[in-house]
């Protein structure tokens, strides 16, 4: 477990040290690869049997392993993608070499904080890690490869809102601590494993209060409406690989905090309380985001709102609960973590090619960059919940869980908004993908279009690599839309059990 935490830290240091050379990207990649290699044994062993570390401060069970593998996978993907991306940004004069060094250092730090979230056993430690993700990622957003003012604005809003929100989460943790000390005294009463075992003895009224604060706190970070407002700004202004990480996994780590917390709160307060709050937040998120998706004219913001929608769906599934609901929610986390980063990667390309994030100014992606266009299409359809892509399965599982509970109102509302989202996404991306391409070709866009005879620039190789990353993700989207492999299935079921649902 420890190497998993140490590798990104050392990589971050290495990148910072190398910031004057052009090797930072490769250092970052090397770090990501070794992280992947080292995380596999930890992940595999913890799925079957949970393990502890650092005197009980760290703990890893199937759920942690699940989240960790998502973090690792996406960090690897974005490390590969970032190299090509930053080479282009550097050429375009949007960032200097030192900036690149800082970028990779922060990126690895960011990954470290997220990994810490997944393995923290102590709730406060988890909180520290989540707050640290805010700070680090705010710096990444503020790095501002796009317009400086906008980047600062987004970063400022992001950090203020998330810090405020997360302050409440800490309050909730304090209250929990208070409740648990009432039961077992001061010793280790913040450890999740301990809390889990005494959960049913905790004072329900206190835990309700704690849960409200934690839900709003982590909910802000997880992008649940109506406290989601930082999200569209941050996601649209961050460099694309960072948006991918923010959306694909950062939100989920915050939601992971909620999940862990729910499993402590639920035994004393009952499922009704946590469930209905989560369902309400879920539905509000889906509703609000779907409306914004419908009228959105900026594709990165559209993707950001889609993240809110999907966090809402996850919250909905988790709130509905039961094996099916939890399964759906967890599977949805995975699915969303595949589709959304793919879209952000693709939109980074589109932005590089067209120099704008406005939907109406982008035209004919399919004809100018066929491969990328198809990948975008797969991602967009997947996000809109259309079968045979992955997200449909998790959504349908959640719907089935809702049926078992008899929540027809939820089903109806959800489907209504789902159609709106479908319309919004398809009309937005349809407008971009179809039509004739009017823009002059751009060097980095050329690589994507794969037109032969162009002089192979230095970026050629990394462009192909990032294409490969996107292709792998798209293939996963399709495959997961047709079948859930056994190891994922069993991991999810083990995670559900870890959360205490039989």
């Amino acid at each position, binding site marked *: 477990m420890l190497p998993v935490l140490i590798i990104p830290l050392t990589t971050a240091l290495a990148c910072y040290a190398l910031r004057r050379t052009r090797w930072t990207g490769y250092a970052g990649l090397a770090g990501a690869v070794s992280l992947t290699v080292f995380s596999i044994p930890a992940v595999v062993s913890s799925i079957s049997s949970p393990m502890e570390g650092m005197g009980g401060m760290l703990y890893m069970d199937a759920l942690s392993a699940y989240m960790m593998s998502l973090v690792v996978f996406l960090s690897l993907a974005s490390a590969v993608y970032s190299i090509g991306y930053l080479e282009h940004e550097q050429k375009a004069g949007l960032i200097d070499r030192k900036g690149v060094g800082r970028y990779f250092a922060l990126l690895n730090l960011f990954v470290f904080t997220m990994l810490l979230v997944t393995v923290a056993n102590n709730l406060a430690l988890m909180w520290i890690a989540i*707050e640290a993700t805010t700070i680090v990622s705010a710096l990444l957003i503020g790095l501002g490869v796009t317009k400086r003012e906008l980047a600062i604005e987004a970063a400022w809003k992001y950090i203020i809102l998330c810090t405020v929100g997360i302050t409440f989460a800490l309050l909730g943790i304090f209250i929990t601590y208070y409740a648990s000390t009432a039961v077992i005294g001061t010793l280790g009463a913040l450890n999740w494993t301990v809390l889990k075992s005494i959960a049913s003895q905790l004072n329900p009224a206190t835990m309700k209060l704690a849960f409200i604060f934690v839900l709003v706190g982590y909910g802000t970070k997880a992008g649940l409406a109506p406290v989601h407002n930082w999200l569209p700004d941050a996601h649209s202004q961050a460099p694309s690989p960072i948006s991918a990480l923010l959306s694909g996994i950062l939100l989920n780590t915050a939601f992971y905090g909620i999940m862990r917390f729910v499993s402590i709160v639920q035994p004393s307060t009952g499922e009704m309380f946590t469930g209905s709050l989560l369902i309400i937040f879920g539905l509000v998120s889906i509703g609000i985001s779907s409306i914004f998706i419908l009228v959105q004219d900026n594709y990165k913001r559209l993707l950001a709102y889609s993240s809110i929608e999907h966090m809402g769906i996850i919250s909905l599934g988790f709130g509905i609960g039961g094996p099916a609901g939890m399964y759906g929610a967890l599977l949805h986390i995975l699915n969303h973590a595949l589709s959304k980063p793919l879209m952000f990667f693709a939109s980074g390309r589109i932005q590089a090619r067209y120099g704008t994030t406005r939907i109406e100014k982008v035209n004919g992606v399919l004809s100018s960059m066929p491969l990328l266009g198809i990948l975008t299409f797969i991602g967009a359809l997947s996000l809109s919940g259309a079968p045979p892509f992955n997200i449909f399965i998790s959504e349908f599982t959640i719907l089935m869980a809702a049926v078992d509970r008899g929540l027809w109102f939820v089903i109806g509302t959800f489907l209504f908004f789902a159609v709106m989202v479908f319309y919004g996404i398809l009309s937005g991306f349809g407008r971009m993908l179809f039509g004739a391409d009017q823009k002059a070709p751009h060097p980095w866009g050329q690589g994507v279009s794969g037109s032969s005879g162009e002089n192979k620039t230095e970026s050629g190789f990394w462009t192909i690599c990032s294409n490969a990353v996107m292709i792998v993700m798209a293939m996963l989207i399709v495959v997961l839309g047709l079948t859930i492999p056994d190891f994922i299935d069993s991991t999810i079921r083990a995670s559900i059990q870890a959360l205490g649902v039989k």
Partner: protein
Amino acid sequence: MKNWIHVFSVIDFISAGILLTAVAMNALRRLESCVKAYSLNSWLLSLLVAMTALVVGETHLYIASLVTFLSKGVIIPVFLRRIVKQMKVTHEVEPYISNAMSLTISGILVAIVYGSLKQGIFVTGFSRNVLQISIAVIFIGLFIMITRKKAITQVIGLLFMENGLFLAGFSLTYGMPTLIELGVLFDMLMGVIILGIFAIQIKRVFASADLDKLTTLKG
């Protein structure tokens, strides 16, 4: 120990002072006085922690008190004052609503907090009021963030929220394990520093310390 009740009332007294300094923020017009109010608030907080330490007799609480005093009572105010100076902003707070109005709303917030928390949530602990006060301070801090235009006032509001949070932490549980507490403090400190940096950048990039300019991203 000796006179429990006495000490308890002292703690109540100090926490009331914390609430008062927070409410007073609503009426302050100058940035400098806001920073001063914050220092006062932090001092009171560290005093309260020290008192708690006295009551409980735990060493780590003394350390916590000292750390709180140093970080929140000294370092951050100094840092804030430097930023205020560096930004060369007008020293007016420029709230969106009148002081009277904001005082009223703060009062209502306090009432809501007291009202919603009155059901018997807390069976133990050394004070009936401290949790309510701390949540009220947090809410007032948030309210200040909502109603003040300047970037720096938002930072101050955030700091007030954190003080309230620490108050809750100490009052409820006699403090967290030291390592955790240090971690939380470190995070906060980092957060404030980075916010300060961004505040300066806002001033530089937007040529204004008001957050009104920060409304390009919408919809």
